[in-house]
């Protein structure tokens, strides 16, 4: 109960906009998230079809598991499958960090923002 309350208090303190959603390739390793959008206006249609076909669906649970050295591909777990894709293509997927990890993710996102 205590924990839930803390979360409840913490949540409104976070900026509600950009810090909740981030492109998949910026998602820190091991942080559970959910897919918000796949593709979009600027992403090409083929990529969108391919991603949807492989199970990148809006609402699906997603987590970054492994990253290859020197900017190599990412291995992400989408629902129950592990899929490899390149960071550039992962950028077409917007994700939202699931609430339990908001504090962790907010820090990581801030870090990623500074780096960018």
């Amino acid at each position, binding site marked *: 109960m205590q924990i839930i309350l803390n979360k409840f208090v913490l949540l409104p303190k976070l900026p509600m906009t950009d810090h909740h959603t981030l492109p998949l390739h910026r998602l820190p390793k091991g942080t559970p998230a959910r897919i918000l959008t796949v593709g979009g206006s600027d992403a090409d249609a083929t990529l969108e079809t*391919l991603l*949807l076909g492989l199970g990148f669906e809006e609402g699906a649970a997603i987590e970054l598991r492994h990253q290859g050295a020197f900017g*190599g591909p990412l*291995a992400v*777990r989408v629902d129950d*499958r592990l899929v*490899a894709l390149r960071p550039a293509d992962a950028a077409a997927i917007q994700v939202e960090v699931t609430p339990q990890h908001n504090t962790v993710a907010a820090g990581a996102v801030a870090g990623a923002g500074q780096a960018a």
Partner: protein
Amino acid sequence: MSTALNLALVGNPNSGKSSLFNTLTGSRQKVGNYPGVTVERRAGTFQASDGRIISVVDLPGTYTLTPNSPDEVITCEALLGKSDLEQTPDAIVCVADATNLRVHIRFVLELRRLGKPVVVALNMMDLAKRDGLELDIERLAQELGVPVIPTIAVRRSGIEDLAKAFTGDDWSALWQQFPVSPRAEDPTPPVRDLQREARRIVAAATLHEGLEHKLTRRTDAVVLHPVGGPLILMALLFVMFQAVFAWAAAPMKWIDASIVALQELTLAAMPDTLLRSLLVDGVLAGVGSVVIFLPQILILFTFILILEASGYMARAAFLMDRIMTMAGLNGRAFIPLLSSFACAIPGIMAARTIDNPRDRLTTIMVAPLMTCSARLPVYTLIIAAFIPNTDVGGGVGLQGLVMFGLYLAGIISALIVAAVLKKTLTKGAPPRLLLELPKYQVPSVRDIFIGLYERARIFLRRAGTIILLSMIALWGLATFPAPPPDATEPDIVYSAAGKIGRGLEVIFAPIGFNWEISIALVPGMAAREVAVGALGTVYSLSGNEDAVASSLATVLQTAWTLPTALAFLAWYIFAPQCLSTLAVARRETNSWGWTVFMFGYLFALAYIAAGATYWVSRALL
């Protein structure tokens, strides 16, 4: 024998579809190619419980009915009845991975719209149980409106239920229970709608969510580690090539001994006629020197098949992606290129899974640089003859190390050639990698054996046909015209082959090749390993009687200098001569220009590499 039903087996890649196909059909299967398009076509038959013969074709794996690559086109056309190559199936069996249901069910929803009976084989039930996943199968069938039969393809489980479903009475009863809806005429709904529906169905049929398999997760933490992963991959490849040598040594000795025994028997049993010479010098020496490499090819394929079936191969593609990107390729090209270690032909065909045409072309162009098993005979022969079998420490043999180096040289040249191509002739946007990393699984022994049996059959058929014919042709060229009575040199010098070899020697002498090698390279056009057989024939016809009995390696030790042997090895890293590869490249690229380009650049590289090796080693040794 007429068949009662024609089934099409479909499913996502990694659904265990091929394993199910193997379990259903066993040895009653035929592996061939789709004419014109070189995607592997696997078809077979099995008996339903009442003895009816059911034919089944294993269509290439696909995620949707909207094809993204050439092999997906085949599946879609066959299912839609648009294919000239396949009969329109009477029913569709869709193999779905129980542990990964959402994406698979979405595909079932697409299939259901085709207006054909669809049976879902809910596969990998063992993995589902292992992960604690519980499914309400009746509910799933009810929601989908199609029969669902749980199976474990790798363990035969559920296959009886599947075979029983196809018995006459059960089959009609099945479709009374699950009426087939007519073919949907409206356009396919957007994929997101199908996804939503699939999600709803799976949620309704799931009694207990599975937990992620811990072992797969832990294994991946090591295998996909940014530093550890590539090291493990290198170690695996190294062990693989060491094993090809160490384990094959004994069976190769037995085959060699049997061939020598057969030659001696023939020599003893027959008078000294042309026919005896044909049998001993042409057929036995030629074909025997190729068949001897069967153990090595089987060992190599055992490794490749196990790595594929266990789920590691996709991980290797993941690990190799960064390096492949530097060459302008994608990690996905790693699988066609790794198959090319066995033979460039399946490798070039496997390039069909690459959706970008430029990447595919680049992959096809460099595939022959991967050391195919047909080069193994050449490498083994020369290494055995010229590289001392010393231990360089830690149980690592020098011979294995040289072999590893030759493979590595092939890989590095492939990456360089690909990078150059991508910067010049096949310039384009960087390719993408989108690849499922399947769950780890213990491979089924039957699947491995069926795979090995297929490879052995293909190899021996080649030995029995194309290689045998080239050997007989070569024997003819090397025997006629007969030498004059006052001949002072070996017979072969006076023959047609001798004259051709002398002619070619003009081209090859600068890179250290003698006329015997020059002759051997010609029939080597048919298949690279024929060069070994050709050397066997040439030397057994040119030498004294001792040469026939002693092994070719011993003969070469005295006939060749070390620089020549090394130059020959370097030539074979590139070795352009393989008609089958060129024919497949022509078919796949649909361009004579690219085919000629492939031959030309390989020849140029082979010539330069062999020449450089010859002159450098001559200067140093």
